[in-house]
């Protein structure tokens, strides 16, 4: 699967409280959550994000609370992929479970600037920076993880698997 979009860039230790503040956790509806995604760190994100865009960040992205509302909010906002130097472990697991594509790639996390056009191939792990004409290699996920993401998350994947 290949995705293309423009990059939004953030720093290290972006926590789930800024991805989706707790004051909005009184509903788990993706349509409600997406309106407040990244609000406390980047008030313009919601206005600027387009379908298929890509989020790029530094170390320990998604640290803090276990709220699955965080990857749900990012996914619902239109983001097709999050690239980071590293991910906090609960967030990492939650992304796969809700079908939000992620790639760990320190090189790309440093090199990509805000607004760069990025093309990423989940099968090969190659991230192409179209704007800067550079390529970065991340380690691709095994097929079953890519399968979960392609199906929109563990729920849909499990439903499909149990139907077979």
């Amino acid at each position, binding site marked *: 699967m290949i995705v293309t979009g423009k990059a939004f860039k953030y720093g290290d*230790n972006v*926590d789930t*409280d*800024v991805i989706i*503040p*707790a*004051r909005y*956790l*009184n*509903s*788990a509806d993706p349509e409600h959550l997406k309106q407040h995604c990244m609000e*406390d*760190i980047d008030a313009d994100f919601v206005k600027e994000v387009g379908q298929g865009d890509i989020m790029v960040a530094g*170390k*320990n992205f998604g*640290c*803090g*609370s*276990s*709220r*699955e*509302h965080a*990857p749900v909010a990012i996914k619902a906002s239109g983001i097709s992929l999050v690239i980071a130097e*590293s991910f*906090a*472990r*609960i967030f990492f*697991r*939650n992304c796969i*479970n*809700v079908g939000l594509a992620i790639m760990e790639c320190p090189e790309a996390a440093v090199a990509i600037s805000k607004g760069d056009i990025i093309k990423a191939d989940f099968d090969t792990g190659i991230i192409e920076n179209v704007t800067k004409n550079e390529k970065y290699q991340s380690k691709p996920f095994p097929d079953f993880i890519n399968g979960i993401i392609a199906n929109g*998350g*563990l*729920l849909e994947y*499990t*439903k499909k698997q149990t139907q077979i």
Partner: protein
Amino acid sequence: MGMTITQKILAEHAGVPEVKAGDLIEAKLDYVLGNDVTAPPAIKIMKQLGVERVFDKERVCLIQDHFTPNKDIKSAELCKTMRCFAREQEISHFYELGRREMGIEHVILPDNGIILPGDMVIGADSHTCTYGALGAFSTGVGSTDLACAMARGITWFKVPDAIRIILKGSFKKFVTGKDLILHIIGMIGVDGALYKSLEFEGEGLKSISMAGRFTICNMAIECGAKNAVFPFDEYTLRYIAKTNPKRFSSSDYKIYTADEDAGYAQTIEIDLCDVPLTVALPSIPSNTKKAEDCRDLKIDQVVIGSCTNGRLEDIGAAAEILKGLKVHEDVRCIIIPGSQKIYRYALEAGWLQIFDDAGCVISTPTCGPCLGGHMGVLAKGERCVATTNRNFVGRMGDTGSEVILSGVPVAAASAVLGRVGTPDEL
């Protein structure tokens, strides 16, 4: 190579003789936990999966604590969803507000004798790692994992590598487990233990109470750890003899010890005498400083409570410091006992009277202000010293407000002083 305590618990619950760091395993769960924020989405997912019943109604714990008593209509709907599900499924560990068993999830699960040494627990709350204090394995997950775990009673894990923390010496006066874990997070950073377990050992353990151990394990997530664990000792024994005499007397729990030749990614030695009264300044828990070096920071609010520091010992320590004193005229001091049992004890021990005389707010058990939910949300420009676990931007309210993390003695002293301070100044 031998195994750590964490690896042994994982191996046993996966039904294999041995695991090593990096192995992917499926393991049986003894307890599965959700709260009013994370359980409602999980309940929806479980229904969508077509699963009618939870795997074991005695082993699924559904705790209302984040936005309770309900702060608004939407949060009331979340609790209603959970309450209806709990009734339909006849969940044993669902407690109504005000009842003696109720309180903050990570306070009541151990205090009510539900979790015991050797247990394997996941919870859709990042601070589920608290129960490592009992020599159990516990870690946080999201709502989808919770849904699948409620349905099947098993989940998959990647076996973590470990950081060994050897403790020696003993704490100086007023220094607690909170200061130690803030000190560790300051040393290794908020991703210093990413994907790893923290395994504590050494003669310094004698200086750390059970309440302190719960606090330490609770905040292991703040340095990225998957879990933290303390070895079983006489403190654990005394605690479980009190919380679950039945399972204690029938030895219905399991003690795991690390092998001599267990492998560790890193070893850290800490002399507890060197741990100062510590605070974490905004807006990351690793931004630690000695409390005595922050005396120029004026404050507007103090919160004493939460799953980190709302235990009996914590509330008692606050009462001891605040006895006969008054909260500073510019400060609101909010005291939140972690459970109804602690609230009742505080009532009978005269602690609530001390708080009331000092001019504190006394709240029913709730997570409330810790995550900016209710019961003490901050306005722009306001600063709070809190015994909670996170000081991220906007955590307790406006993005222009600030949270300083500390242990109970520093928080209580600061409430009186109107600025960051230490009990010896009183």
